[in-house]
């Protein structure tokens, strides 16, 4: 995103808030999941997956449409909905701190495993006795 860090801290863009608001509902997240798994679906097919009055369901579809997360097109007498994943890129930054946390931990895990191999013969550079294999792992 080409927004300066200060601008991000001051206020998130309205579009981003709209996307979070749209994603806040479990029903709407389920609609997105269905579209992701099954591809474009008619309103009837989607609605049949939820036990709620049709006007309420239409309202959920409207929120998703306005957030740009789904698009609608006519196919004869049916209205087909499809997932529009591009806006999701805008909320991806949200999980960045967690992704960094896990990357750090995974790298700490790799170092721990590599280091505790020292002396057990698991790594070629541990000694000058030539190439080693996994079988050496069993040695104390």
């Amino acid at each position: 995103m080409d927004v300066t860090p200060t601008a991000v801290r001051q206020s998130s863009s309205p579009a981003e808030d709209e996307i979070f608001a749209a994603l806040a509902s479990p029903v709407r997240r389920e609609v997105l999941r269905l579209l992701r798994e099954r591809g474009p679906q008619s309103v009837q097919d989607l609605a049949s997956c939820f036990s709620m009055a049709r006007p309420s369901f239409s309202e959920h579809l409207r929120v998703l449409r306005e957030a740009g997360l789904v698009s609608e097109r006519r196919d004869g007498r049916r209205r087909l909905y499809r997932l529009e994943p591009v806006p999701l890129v805008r909320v991806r930054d949200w999980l960045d701190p967690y992704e960094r946390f896990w990357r750090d931990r995974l790298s700490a895990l790799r170092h721990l495993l590599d280091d505790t191999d020292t002396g057990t013969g698991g790594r070629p550079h541990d000694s000058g006795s030539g190439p080693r294999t996994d079988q050496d792992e069993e040695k104390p």
Partner: protein
Amino acid sequence: MTDLDDPTVLHLDEYLAHPPARVWQALTDPGLLAQWFMPGDFRLSVGHRYTMRGTAMPGTGFSGTVQAEVLAFEPERMLRLAWRDADPGSPSAADWTITWTLEPEGRGTRLFLTHEGFDPGNEMQRRARSIMDGGWRHLMTNSLAAVL
């Protein structure tokens, strides 16, 4: 991550040049966990609850202290944990599921991590709050400057 991924789920994976048995040990031995992850009284038993103290994550509201529970496991293949923020008033309102999956790959292991349960509604509120907080702080600083 691809564009089609669920934005409320985080997926990561890492290749480790060690057999699944060793990776599994690092995931389940409290002594080893304390070295690369966080100290805590982990025990490999479904339903076991324990606390881990890590560092807070500024900007997310996460307090860093985790109330964890073992949900399920298959030795050397899968370990699933529930993670809640140990601070009940924490703005992160964390209620997550963490799943480790191990797959042999060549002479090593591919370790997959799935972190699920991020709540966009909560993030929306947190953002609204932090924008308001920022506004208040700004206002306070200005009024203080005017008084002093």
